[in-house]
């Protein structure tokens, strides 16, 4: 399974490097949204819970662009059939797509975090960075797993661009709440405070629950 998943991830990253259809759109959306918040909130900077809220909601909607496109090449260019004809564990496709989305989200955040700090954030981002990286990784796992599941369901429908957000957003609300709550003390105007352990724990638990759920149901999503 690991070899198959690695092959699919490698192929997906190569396709993205070649076409640049997903990550640039996600990054552009995030930066543009920060600019809109900058002017829309009518203030030069934000901190604390407002900063955390703006940051995570923007990342969530930027992630939706990647979720929407995750299976497009498989559907439109026969990748599903080619994969299903191979003697492979079908769950490898779930693992591979979630891993590819995780990579896309990480690249997005490499651009979005500095842009957020530059355009909106009041305190310096550097002291908060180690904690923020950990939270981003935890949230990315949840977004990647839930996004892959929603995308695999939505791609089977004609209105996939509508169905994917309708399925994914409600499931991702707990991720955003936990991530925003955990991030708030890191973005306080006076410098980062302590992060309450329960929010990262909730994020981790949510990741595990949905990873197991996705593992259990993904095979059926690929069935005719």
């Amino acid at each position, binding site marked *: 399974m690991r070899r198959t998943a690695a*092959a699919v991830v490698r192929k997906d990253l190569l396709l993205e490097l070649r076409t640049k259809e997903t990550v640039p759109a996600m990054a552009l959306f995030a930066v543009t949204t920060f600019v809109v918040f900058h002017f829309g909130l009518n203030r030069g900077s934000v901190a604390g819970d407002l900063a955390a809220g703006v940051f995570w909601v923007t990342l969530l909607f930027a992630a939706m662009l990647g979720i929407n496109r995750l299976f497009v090449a498989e559907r439109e*260019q*026969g990748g599903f059939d080619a*994969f299903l*004809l*191979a*003697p492979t564990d079908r769950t490898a496709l779930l693992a591979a797509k979630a891993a590819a989305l995780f990579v896309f989200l990480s690249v997005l955040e490499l651009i979005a975090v500095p842009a957020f700090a530059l355009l909106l954030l009041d305190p310096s981002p550097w002291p908060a960075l180690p904690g923020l990286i950990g939270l981003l990784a935890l949230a990315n796992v949840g977004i990647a797993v839930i996004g892959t599941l929603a995308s695999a369901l939505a791609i089977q429908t004609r209105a996939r661009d509508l169905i994917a957000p309708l399925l994914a957003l409600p499931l991702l609300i707990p991720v955003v709440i936990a991530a925003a709550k955990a991030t708030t003390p890191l973005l306080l105007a006076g410098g980062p405070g302590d992060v309450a352990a329960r929010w990262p724990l909730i994020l981790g638990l949510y990741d595990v629950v949905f990873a197991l759920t996705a593992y259990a149901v993904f095979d059926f999503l690929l*069935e*005719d």
Partner: protein
Amino acid sequence: MAAPDEPAVELHDVGRDYGERAALRGVTLTVPAGATLAVFGPNGAGKSTLLRVLATLLRPHRGSVRVLGRELPREGWAVRGRIGLLGHDPLLYRDLSGRENLRYQARLFGVDAARVDELLERTGMARRADEPLRTLSRGMVQRLAVCRTVLHDPPLLLLDEPLANLDPAAVDAVEPLIGRDARRTRVMTSHDPAAGLAQADLVLGLRGGRAVVAGPAAGVTEADVGALYR
């Protein structure tokens, strides 16, 4: 694993629907191992649906299907990897090169990368193998699709108009890969009665999802096949 004398394909009263419309109705046939079945019929007759059922990509809604000695869809896992499907869609990514596509497929099938290079040479595609598919002609893409189909040397080939878009030189190049060979069973669709009958041991004529002609190719004439289209 199928026993040596076991048929490669056995269908009994197979039906498949798309919503309200029946694409296959009560199709029954047996294809011995090593034989070639030519499937004829007008557009929408159910030819491609039949191939997709045999390829494990579609579930039959009625009847029983055995492929390479395994019951489908229950034992589909056991025959995937022993089937080569060449359909209308090449099942290749347009933004990857031929070599990248085939190497990806080779990894999925656990096939050595040297086999990719060998097939590219044999089909005359080695020189253009590093160009994205979207820059290649349909005939070249079809040659790469043939490479994908036989990459893992499957004992059952499902070929949907395999020579479409190929020029005579390309036909000569792919013939040894997908042509008659006692080691492999072929189920192939065609709209060309003469060419199809020349290659076939058995014939299946479909119309409206029903088998209206079925039996040894020796007993079927071009006129019989032509009548399917009128």
